[in-house]
């Protein structure tokens, strides 16, 4: 008896919800300006969900499974999957950020690869990525060795080195712009800021990026180094290995996996660098290449942003973004395959 009452109530809920959604959709399609249609739609969906949840049914477990997956999956599909598919599609059209009128085939791609500022940006991003990967990892590993040695106040040092990583790149970028433009130039009277020379400006971003990121990578190395069993190190000491030798012959090979993780992490993050680039130089200064001024420190992420937002060339910006994604996907696939190979060896 009670079961039946519940069934009737829940079915009524579902019907009411469906009606509300249909009415909202009707308003959406035929009467664009009706107020409250959004609330009607969302409320209707909630009531449908509530109704199906209350419905006494042998398939209750299945219903719960679907309801549990629904919220995250909906957000994920609408913010990531649909825009991603649309984005690839738009890169073959003359999309202007709102609508497109025709397919242009590969024209966007051809235009992109024949524009010198893009090719320059691609090159400078690769250079920055490699240099930054090296400098971050060298600094991080050195710091990790310091922080796992018997230095007093290790925990303070770890926290201090880690701190820059917690503050957003935008805020830090402006602070460093001040340091390069005002502080460094005050050391040598009359000297020009590093940010006015194309090569030095790149070095400046490299310095800040290493400063910000090394503390984070350091902590991953610290975790790795702490995993090396102490007795092995002690045994090697007894056998007469120096500190340096036990580092090269024992510690480094034993944390090879940590190296792989850190190298790929820094590769991907350096390649995606936007905030610091935006706040410190925003692409300046320009460099003259073949009679044309080119923003000398504009990495790909910033190049995409400027193409679409500043120059209002949405299709072109989206095309660059698709290529950006393909490069990152190749790097990630390489990492996965290296990881798999290692598993086989073990």
């Amino acid at each position: 008896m009670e079961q039946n009452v519940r069934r009737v109530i829940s079915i009524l809920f579902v019907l009411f919800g469906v009606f509300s959604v249909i009415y909202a959709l009707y308003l959406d399609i035929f009467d664009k300006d009706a107020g409250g249609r959004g609330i009607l739609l969302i409320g209707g969906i909630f009531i449908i969900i509530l109704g199906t949840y209350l419905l006494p049914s042998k398939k209750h477990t299945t219903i719960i499974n679907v309801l549990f997956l629904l919220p995250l999956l909906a957000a994920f599909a609408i913010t990531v999957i649909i825009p991603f598919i649309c984005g690839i599609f738009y890169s073959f059209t003359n999309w202007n950020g709102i609508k497109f009128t025709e397919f242009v085939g590969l024209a966007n791609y051809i235009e992109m690869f024949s524009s010198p500022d893009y090719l320059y940006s691609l090159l400078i991003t690769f250079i920055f990525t490699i240099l930054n990967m090296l400098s971050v990892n060298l600094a991080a590993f050195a710091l990790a060795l310091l922080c796992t040695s018997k230095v007093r106040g290790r925990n303070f040092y770890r926290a201090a080195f880690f701190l820059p990583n917690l503050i957003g790149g935008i805020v830090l970028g402006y602070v460093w712009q001040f340091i390069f433009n005002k502080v460094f130039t005050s050391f040598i009277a009359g000297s020009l800021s590093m940010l006015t020379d194309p090569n030095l400006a790149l070095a400046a971003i490299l310095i800040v990026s290493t400063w910000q990121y090394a503390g984070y990578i350091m902590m991953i190395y610290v975790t790795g180094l702490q995993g090396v069993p102490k007795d092995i190190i002690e045994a090697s000491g007894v056998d007469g290995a120096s500190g340096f030798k036990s580092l090269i012959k024992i510690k480094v090979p034993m944390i090879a996996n940590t190296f792989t993780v850190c190298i790929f992490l820094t590769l991907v993050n350096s390649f995606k660098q936007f905030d610091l680039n935006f706040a410190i130089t925003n692409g300046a200064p320009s460099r003259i290449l073949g009679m044309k001024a080119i923003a000398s420190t504009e990495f790909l992420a910033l190049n995409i942003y400027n193409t679409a937002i500043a120059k209002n060339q949405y299709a072109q910006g989206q095309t660059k973004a698709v290529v950006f994604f393909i490069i990152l996907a190749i790097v990630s696939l390489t990492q996965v395959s290296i990881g798999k190979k290692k598993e086989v060896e073990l």
Partner: protein
Amino acid sequence: MNSKRINRYIAELASMVLALIVLSPFVLVIFNSAKKSADIVISPVAPPLNWGQMLINMQNVINNQNFSYWKSFASSLFITVVTLVLLTVFSCMAAWVLVRNKTKWSGIIFMIFVAAMVIPFQVVMLPLLSTFREISSFTGIKLLSSYVGIIFAYLGFGGSMSVFILHGFIKGIPKELEEAAWIDGCSPEGTFFRVVFPLLKPVQMTILILNGIWIWNDYLLPSLMLGLNGRIKTLPVAVSSFVGSYVKQWDLILTAAFLAMIPIIILFLFAQRQIIQGMVEGAIK
């Protein structure tokens, strides 16, 4: 023995010097946010003569229309906290279903979540704006320059990594616990919220920290979705908008930067260990 001691002194000295170098930008920010513009020109590295100037600078910045510190702080806090609560609950629910139901569909959905971690924000940001605009005009729910929209977007972007981390953890939880609850007559949703959810506390911490730091500091998404001079501003957007309108006024810019840093530095002082641990664990997985 002697050379070991020398090595140790070198290490101590090196740590101290390095810490000084790493922390010096923060010191410079604090020093210069307590100076007048003219004093910065005289020397940007000297300690300030009058610390009281900091309060004056802060008052100028806090009430500035482009920055409006308290309002931006509240917006940032609201967006971060609401997203984190929803994201934790929803991603735990989703990951639990995906682990405990071994069907073809759950495998496919999980694979999509994992594969999506490779997708950089840049490739979805432009279509995201147009998708949200379309949905807004169709349903009448405001998604651009609104809290609903940006929280919804963060749920989508934070989802895949959270599910991935949780998936690995839930696999390690013995199924017997849930079966016992099930035999005692507990419904599946009851089992999840009373038995499974509390067990996930350690990973939930990782997810909170990893996503919290990222969302709090994120610039690109809020600047695109909320606009640089929109009604709602997060702290990074407010700093950027302030810098844009007060070019080269370093005393005020550095005060703004200092104010923007304070909340997270205070948080770090209280939860140092958890924050470092959470961020490192997230990276290794």
